[in-house]
């Protein structure tokens, strides 16, 4: 038995972990090392006492010449050994319990520290500044391009537009290859839907479907910029106030520019007038194309007319608020804010073949009759695209 005990190696006590880190893993290894150290000490104690005992017994046997009752001694020793083992086990249990207790205390201290740091954060002014900023319009505070577009905000809200594009209106796009791979182009579309989602959707369709173009900007009606929040928001997501100067600057910089020559007349027309194109402004977009030599791409959007069908319009009330019209749809203002949710019609967008005005000389810009004729031609072109798309449509909601 003593030989057996002697065979056991004393554990290596020199490789204790350093006290540098407070990780859980480190705590565990330190605990294990400590336990091992203690066990080693107890073992050596035990070994010493047993060898002492052995020596004592041999001496006793030698000197007194007592008859050697091996069996008795064996049982005695066994009993002693078991007793010792029991004591060792007890100490070990006690040790591990104490360690666990210490660990618990440490965890509690950690939790308290975390809570206090949170409290300090709550009490500091900086925290409220950032929260207030976020509640306000922190998204608008990043650097912007010369026309006020904030790329970070655009990226942030892209998932929303993608949801509307893929899941809600399930937009199908045709003729995307009619947009040139590079260089300027003026995209002229019909305007509908009470709330100008169509501009954003045409922009998203170019972003999602066209392999190269990422730089479409849309022109927005004046009245939006009179209004708080909406005006700023439109600027930050890439809308630009509709005026020839802005469009010219954008086209000369090589951008795609989306324009709705119908303006407010188109977007706010009654449901019974749906898909009937209104007058196309004063032909400013034709002059723009001639001036900048940009090709014109006619675009038809079908499906947007049904998202907010206008039954009636209240113009007197609108004038007092300063908006061009207040629509009365089957859901608005009947359902209040719920009525502002557009209906999930199925949309389709077709990009027509580019029209070029290069062949007209520089004098053509002053020829109002010609400008009007060309504008009417473009209008008929878009009307034709819309008729085509409507012919193919079986249902408003399924498409």
């Amino acid at each position: 038995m003593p030989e057996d005990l002697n065979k056991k190696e004393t554990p290596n006590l020199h490789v204790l972990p350093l006290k540098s880190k407070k990780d859980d893993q480190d705590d565990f290894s330190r605990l294990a090392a400590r336990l091992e150290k203690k066990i080693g000490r107890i073992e050596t104690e035990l070994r010493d006492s047993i060898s002492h005992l052995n020596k004592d017994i041999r001496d006793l046997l030698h000197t007194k010449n007592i008859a050697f009752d091996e069996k008795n001694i064996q049982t005695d020793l066994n009993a002693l050994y078991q007793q010792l083992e029991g004591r060792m086990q007890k100490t070990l249990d006690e040790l591990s319990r104490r360690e666990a207790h210490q660990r618990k205390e440490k965890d509690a201290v950690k939790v308290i520290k975390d809570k206090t740091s949170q409290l300090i954060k709550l009490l500091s002014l900086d925290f409220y500044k950032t929260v207030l900023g976020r509640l306000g319009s922190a998204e608008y505070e990043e650097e912007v391009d010369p026309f006020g577009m904030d790329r970070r905000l655009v990226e942030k809200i892209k998932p929303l537009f993608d949801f509307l594009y893929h899941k809600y209106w399930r937009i199908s796009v045709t003729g995307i290859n009619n947009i040139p791979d590079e260089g300027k182009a003026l995209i002229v579309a019909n305007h509908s839907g009470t709330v100008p989602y169509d501009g954003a959707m045409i922009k998203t369709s170019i972003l999602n479907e066209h392999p190269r173009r990422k730089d479409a900007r849309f022109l927005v009606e004046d009245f939006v910029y009179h209004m708080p929040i909406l005006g700023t928001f439109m600027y930050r997501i890439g809308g630009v106030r509709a005026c020839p100067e802005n469009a010219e600057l954008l086209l000369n910089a090589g951008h795609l520019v989306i324009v709705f020559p119908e303006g407010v007349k188109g977007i706010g027309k009654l449901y019974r007038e749906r898909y009937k194109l209104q007058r196309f402004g004063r032909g400013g977009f034709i002059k723009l194309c001639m001036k900048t030599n940009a090709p014109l791409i006619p675009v038809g959007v079908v499906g947007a007319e049904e998202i907010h069908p206008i039954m009636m319009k209240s113009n007197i009330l609108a004038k007092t608020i300063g908006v061009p019209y207040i629509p009365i749809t089957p859901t608005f203002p009947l359902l209040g804010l719920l009525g502002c949710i557009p209906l999930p019609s199925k949309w389709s967008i077709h990009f027509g073949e580019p029209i070029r005005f290069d062949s007209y000389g520089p004098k053509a810009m002053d020829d109002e009759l010609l400008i009007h004729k060309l504008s009417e031609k473009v209008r008929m072109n878009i009307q034709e695209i819309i008729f085509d798309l409507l012919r193919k449509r079986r249902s408003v909601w399924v498409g």
Partner: protein
Amino acid sequence: MAVERKKTKSADTPHGTIVVTGTSGFKGSRIIKALEADPRYSSIVAIDARKPPPDTKKTKFYKLDLIETLADSKLAEILKSERCDTLVHCAFPITPPKNPSVAHELISIGTLYVMTACAEARVRKVILASTTDVYGAFPTNPNFLQENVHPPRGDRQSQFLADKIDAEKQGLKFAAKYPDRVVTILRSCTILGPTIQSYKTNYLRRPFVTTMMGFDPLVQFVHEDDLIRSFMLAIEKDAPGIFNIVGDGVLPLSRVIKICGKMNLRLPQMGFKTMVQLLWLADISPAPASHVDFLRYLCVADGAKAKKGLGFVPRFSTKEALLSFVGAERLREVRLIEA
């Protein structure tokens, strides 16, 4: 020896006498400093209602208040006796004064007097200091206002700006009447830099900067050194017409306030104007209520014409001008720069 050098320099260059009005103001004093430092200009005359510019070697000073009666004939006499070649008129209050009639007298009538005196004394070139604020802030403004395309509409918003537009008109009338003479009008956007003090820097100096809820217009700045450089360019070259003097790039107002490290206090639109007017009367607001639209709508000018016609390329962008202002402001806080 000094005299000799002076002679050779003046013989080299054809620059005649340069007269600067309003030399106790920011623009006037800085232009005098720049002219003093440039050896090409030998004869400089400063005119001001208050005190002569400090530390000058080649500048003659005349005390003249442009508001007083017969200021035009007095000025004409000075210009004649000094054989004035170029006149730089920047005797304008940089901040809207409390008393609108004084402002009208100085800005509008003062410029009228200067123009009559220039006509009388056959001054070859007149340079007028103006501001892009004269375009006015409107939701119908294009993103970049151009000198020859967009007429100034600021008179619909504020009497202060109406007077400034009137001063510009005096200059343009003079140019139309005497086509052989050069009239340059420099419209600078908001000037920022380490030393300038105006109602706009006062606005940005407050711990709480009030803006209008839901509006965040784009703003642009020009650095004060760039502005003075543009005046020197206009003195050097003969470039008749109006030029926008602006820094490159734009910043949203909220971002400007964030860069300044101030709190953006967004107040609702309702009653904002009344509040600002009351605070203006109580001497707390830096500008009258008529300037509120600049916190709401866009007024950004296109600097392309100045680049082409004047050869003015700003060295500081809008953001760099702002950072230079903010940096100086912080040094001033710890008293490393005297206010």
